[in-house]
């Protein structure tokens, strides 16, 4: 799918290279962010959107250095506030294509409020949530997605906090688009950034990202060559939820409302029994079940988990202004100044 889009004859002829800025990329060697940067540049080149229409907006953290490496309009803002600032950018200029970059600390801790409210409003932007389950830039403290018990510099005896599942938080805020990828899977990330951009409204793309220095191997079960096929399920709309090294595992819905991993060919299960992914289902129940699957009990769901159409905030805002302007007699400031109760002193 990605390849066909990448080869589409777009009138705006851009290559990933056109999106590389002259700044030296300063992430650690081996950092997952490099792969994401490549994926995003590939996706942008394929979007058929002129370069000047992009605004890349980030908060603070390792991943938030992103805008400096992109030759687009970019804004490296303050910790946690990128979603709010991006909301303002999009409302002020709905023609812009907004890519908002945040990490798990930035978006879910200090910026948690802005994250959920941007989703609730459904402002048209693509939020790339780099989830490495650690604070990297401040050198290794636990984050809101760190697994309980994890030993970090601020949890020398293990964290006692429950982690957030970002998808659960987003769905609670009525997210209409949720997708997930892995930093090293450039093909899938590119595809998802394109899908997120196409979706009108707030698109969340969670990227399971590896911090080689402070949390190496956080997603190992899902990413290691030997295990990944059994612990990844790449969802595609209209296709059956089949996974595994031998493509013989699948998901069915149990009588208790829980998803069950089954093996095709065992206990009379055939591929016809496996659930078909419906990303466009407005009911978030299945999206919740799929996005909350964790290894090793389940495979981790990748791909577009939810993609439901809805009007975006700025579409409604622009329409409301048009509607009011159509009926109001006040057309300019002089009209307003002289409206209502006035009197003349002669």
């Amino acid at each position, binding site marked *: 799918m990605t390849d066909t889009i990448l080869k589409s004859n777009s009138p705006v002829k851009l290559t990933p290279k056109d999106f590389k800025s002259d700044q030296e990329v300063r992430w650690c060697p081996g950092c997952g962010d490099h792969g994401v940067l490549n994926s995003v540049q590939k996706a942008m080149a394929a979007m058929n959107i002129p370069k000047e229409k992009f605004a890349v907006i980030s908060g603070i953290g390792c991943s938030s250095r992103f805008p400096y490496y992109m030759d687009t309009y970019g804004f490296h803002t303050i910790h946690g506030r990128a979603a709010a600032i991006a909301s303002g950018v999009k409302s002020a200029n709905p023609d812009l294509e907004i890519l908002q970059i945040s990490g798990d600390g930035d978006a879910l801790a200090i910026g948690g409020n802005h994250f959920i409210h941007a989703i609730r409003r459904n402002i048209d932007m693509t939020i790339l949530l780099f989830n490495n389950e650690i604070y990297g830039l401040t050198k290794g403290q636990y984050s809101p997605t760190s697994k309980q018990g994890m030993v970090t510099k601020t949890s020398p005896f293990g964290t006692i906090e429950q982690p957030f599942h970002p998808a659960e938080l987003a769905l609670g805020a009525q997210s209409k688009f949720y997708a997930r990828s892995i930093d090293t899977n450039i093909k899938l990330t590119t595809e998802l950034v394109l899908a997120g951009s196409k979706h009108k409204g707030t698109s969340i793309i969670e990227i399971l990202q590896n911090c080689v220095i402070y949390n190496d191997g956080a997603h190992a079960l899902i990413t290691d060559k030997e295990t990944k096929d059994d612990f990844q399920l790449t969802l595609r709309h209209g296709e059956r939820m089949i996974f595994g090294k031998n493509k013989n595992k699948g998901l069915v819905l149990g009588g208790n409302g829980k998803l069950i991993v089954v093996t095709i060919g065992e206990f009379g299960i055939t591929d016809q029994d496996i659930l078909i992914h419906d990303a466009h289902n407005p009911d978030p129940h299945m999206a919740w079940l799929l996005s909350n699957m964790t290894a090793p009990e389940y495979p981790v769901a990748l791909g577009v988990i939810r993609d439901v159409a809805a009007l975006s905030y700025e579409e409604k805002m622009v329409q409301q202004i048009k509607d009011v302007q159509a009926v109001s007699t006040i057309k300019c400031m002089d009209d307003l100044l002289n409206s209502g109760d006035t*009197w003349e002193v002669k």
Partner: protein
Amino acid sequence: MSQKTKIIEKEEVVIRFSGDSGDGMQLTGTQFSDTSALFGNDVATFPDYPAEIRAPQGTVGGVSGFQLHFGHKEVNTPGDFADVLVAMNPAALKANLKWVKPSGTIIINEDSFTDRNFEKAGYESDPLDDENLADYNLIRARVTSLTKECLKDTGLDQKSIIRSKNMFTLGMVYWMFDRPLDHTEEFIEKKFKKYPLVVEGNKMVLRAGYNFAKTIEALPYNFSVAPAKIKKGIYRNITGNKATAWGLIAAAEKAGLELFCGSYPITPATEILQELAARKDLGVKTFQAEDEIAGICTSIGASFAGNFAVTTTSGPGLALKTEAAGLAVMTELPLVIVNVQRGGPSTGLPTKTEQSDLMQAIHGRSGECPMPVIAASTPSNCFEYAFSAGKIALEHMTPVILLTDGFIANGAEPWRIPKMADLSSIEVPIAKEGDNYQPYARDKDKLARKWAVPGTKGLEHRIGGLEKMDVTGTVSYVPENHQVMTDIRSERIRRVANFIPDVPIKGNEDADVLVVGWGGTYGHLTTAVRELQAEGKSIALAHFHYIFPLPKNTGEVLSRHKKVIVCELNEGQFAEYLRAGFQDIKFKQYNKLQGLPFTVLELKERFNQLLEEK
């Protein structure tokens, strides 16, 4: 209508309406002031209400007041003391008696003077029996029962009947001051358009009150306050908050930009957001954010994207916006931050006035983080200074803090409507396609960088909170560059002084005493100084609107007088600020922290004392 009654001409009158916060006193006061303004008087008003929407009924804490001052001459304050007090219950009497002039008139709703209400108000016995009231012209009116009687056959429900009792007192006061009823009648017709019965009921009660006052001859004469001699033109009444909102819209229109306001509701600033939200017809975009931080952050985003962006708040909200304000300074984006000051630290006195955010506005950010600070001084000139804040922000590419306060924000006065064509132009330094754009290249005069709006081909660039290299705008940790950029950020704000007017002086340049004020104390200071000047005293006033940077003639003005006294509703923040800048001048202070404006009386006492000191 009142031809038989003797009419006494008065120069000015102060009326204070007071009652429970649900008694409709704000509406009653507003109606009287609008009617007086339409009649041609100069008017100033001061709503004084509790923070609770419906505070415990009948208690002193729940008393809502609305004071208005109207006159044949120039009126600059809502007046210190009332000629007429309307007290709808014992608590209102208790809370306000000290504000009534000796021999003033007090109208009470006798129906509410019950043992139960005495207890709630903290009276041990009926205050009306107290002989202290003998010095006043006390009018006992059974307002509730007369209203009920008047409306008993209308079919209106009991709740609506009782609610309209404020119209009875309004009618009474209209008779006392020989005012026409038509404005209020039209208002009632408009407001209750959907409920003809309510319209009829309210109008009946209004007229009943008017006739009642006439019948009982509430006063042995009725007062007339002739229209003031004011400048020709079209006028309207306006509150400070509305004027602020309109000034911002005017600046956007003048600059040819869309206006964006990201904001979070907070007393007493909320009406600005409300007014802007209502102005979709002028294309205003309002964004009611999830918190104060998102309020300013969405505005910074909108500014980056090319809108004229503003955010509105009050003191504690300004504290929350501080970090983002630093980002706006670092990225040199235009932004107006309106702070409608209120009383106290923390939640403090949210509905009361104070000027204690001055230091927060000038200095309250991390790092060396300068931005211009300006202050409006009257309800109507909030328009002018909001416009000016926008002009400075857009032309100098900087965030600007506009200070107003609860007193001028809620107060109203007649305002001569300006014409947009008469307002100065706003020249925005927008970079164009084809420009050889460097994010931190600057013009020579203002040292302002250019605004390259996303969407403009070829001007792609990155900005952010990290220190940037001079001219190129790339991230820089070079020590010498940080010095250069810090110096530029400071110098470019100082240069705003080249583009603002001198501080005017009211009175003689060689007056013995110079009174110095800033912001919303203008009305009281100017009245006190004017009255003393009329008495032949050697006193002058310098009132500041441009706080940081100060007007260029400030040092010269301050150094010409033997004694300088800085008056402000805080512990002396402006005085401290002036001391730092003008170390050879000895500044005296006069300060007040009661959540209330100065009174002209107390100012005059202090100034007289200072005039007499050797």
